[in-house]
């Protein structure tokens, strides 16, 4: 006779296995993290405008039209036009594309590289770890933008090089954090068990260690996306990032935003609002995700 207790245990497992519907999870998140939900909404709006820029944007973001230079707010140009007669709203909408492209690519490449290096460093330990840490120390001694500028000066400007310049400083920052959580995992017996089974180092790192450092890693990615957007805007503002005529928020502030600030303040105001909102959104969202995932912070 199959004992009822066994059946009960099985039922309990099944219940655990059944995922709660996504909607109820989202609702709970929204109730507990009002700020985080606000952030998520901003991020979603941004992703939406980047994906469907061709359909939403009222004008072409690149074509100059010299009969409409520096026009104020109107029903045709909702946020006015810049010094080349381009519609600011359309450039902001297309700018979301550039920002997200740079933000996600740099954040993902940088953090995945950092993840692998950090876990490997913790796994091998010993001399390799020591040497690796010193190399990371060197990279960390450069402020983000200084290192990014140095890289730009080597590879030159343009969108791909900006991505490289932003990715490189992210790698050591991610590796540092991942290494410290991986060090704790290395001591847990299942890693010894895996080693006793004769699994290869690569398999142990990728299958057994990497999945267990996912939580801090995912949080770091959202933070990196925000930072990357900000960094791209700063580089473009300095004239060392994305180049004209690509619509990018930092670039919109570079060409004469200050010169025309008094007579045409909309040129200077709106692209900055876009950058701030985007980074604000990613940070709020990332913060709340961390609070939700980390039980220690839940009560705070």
């Amino acid at each position, binding site marked *: 006779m199959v004992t009822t207790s066994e059946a009960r245990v099985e039922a309990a497992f099944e219940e655990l296995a059944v995922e709660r519907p996504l909607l109820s999870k989202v609702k709970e998140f929204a109730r507990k993290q009002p700020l985080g939900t606000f952030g998520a909404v901003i991020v979603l709006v941004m992703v939406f405008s980047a994906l469907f820029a061709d359909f939403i944007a009222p004008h072409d973001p690149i074509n100059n039209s010299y009969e409409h230079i520096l026009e104020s707010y109107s029903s045709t140009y909702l946020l006015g036009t810049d010094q080349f007669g381009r519609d600011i709203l359309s450039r902001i909408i297309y700018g979301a594309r550039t920002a997200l492209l740079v933000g996600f690519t740099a954040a993902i490449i940088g953090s995945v590289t950092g993840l692998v290096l950090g876990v490997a460093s913790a796994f091998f330990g010993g001399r390799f770890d020591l040497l690796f840490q010193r190399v990371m120390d060197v990279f960390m001694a450069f*402020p983000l*933008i*200084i290192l990014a500028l140095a890289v730009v000066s080597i590879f030159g400007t343009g969108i791909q090089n900006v991505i490289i310049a932003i990715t490189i400083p992210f790698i050591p920052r991610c590796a540092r954090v991942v290494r410290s959580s991986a060090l704790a995992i290395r001591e847990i017996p299942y890693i010894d068990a895996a080693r006793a089974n004769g699994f290869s180092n690569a398999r142990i790192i990728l299958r057994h260690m990497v999945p267990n450092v996912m939580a801090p890693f995912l949080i770091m990615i959202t933070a990196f996306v925000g930072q990357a957007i900000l960094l791209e805007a*700063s580089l473009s503002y300095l004239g060392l990032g994305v180049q004209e005529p690509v619509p990018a928020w930092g670039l919109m*502030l570079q060409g004469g935003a200050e010169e025309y600030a008094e007579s045409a303040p909309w040129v200077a105001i709106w692209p900055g609002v876009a950058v*701030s909102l985007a980074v604000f959104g990613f940070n709020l969202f990332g913060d709340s995700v961390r609070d939700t995932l980390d039980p220690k912070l839940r009560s*705070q």
Partner: protein
Amino acid sequence: MWQYILKRLILMIPTLVGAAILIFFLLRLIPGDVCELKMAGAGLYADQEQIDICRAELGLDRSVMVQFWEFFSGFLVFDLGKSMWTGREITYEIGLRFQLSLQVAIMATLTATLIAIPLGTISAVKQNTWIDYFVRAFSIAGIAIPSFWLGIMIILGLLITTQAWFGTPWMPPIEYVSPLEDFWGNMSQLIWPAVATGYRYSAVATRMTRSALLEVLREDYIRTARAKGLMDKLIINRHALKNSMLPVVTVIGIEFAFLMGGLVVTEQVFNLNGLGKLFVESVTSQDFSMTQALVMVVVCVFIFTNFLVDIVYAWLDPRIRYA
């Protein structure tokens, strides 16, 4: 304690050497050099012979290792060489601008501290009320708002208000004057850049104050203080705040080291002739010797500040010394 200081000092050496190697060889990967750029800038046809002469003058024709050794050994005795672009001594160029950048950095740190500690405290004491939400949003906004845009907005605001009040738009002084000579003139030039940079740096410190204070407020001795009937104000000021300041001081110290990065953009907006602007100019004109010298200055400031923070920390908290 001395042993700890010595250990930290020795650890600084590989980082410095590594940074020197990294920046030197990174810059040598650049296609083209300052000579080609100089010729192009003067509108001359890039004559190979001319370029070779220019390279020989700047010592760019020697082997990379010789050049590296010259750079590194010079760096050890504070001889940074000559700018490849202007031909002047780099120490002279840096000396011209150092005071301005240092003053903005100090003022920005003060601004950040003055914003962070009161706001963080209120936020922790009023945890999960609308005041707390507001402060948290305000500090995240500090991270999100690009300091260069904040700078543009401040300038715009000043232009509009001065126009309305005095009839003439505000003009910042262009030349840097020492605060000892003309205090108000100096302040009117540097206060706004300091605010724009300081707000950004207050963000991290505000959050740190909040979370450190929240942790301390849960301690038993705070409960004891409450139980014996002390006023809330006294508990916060005398018992809680003092014990939560350690991580906050650390964060402010480390942020100071990163200020240099923030100054790169702020100086551009406010058109200040400081180290940040010099750095951007050296990158655009491919002035290797200037770029690498400035990077080394930044790295040194960073390493040294970190060292000081560590020492202060170890002095305040003996557990660290023996770890």
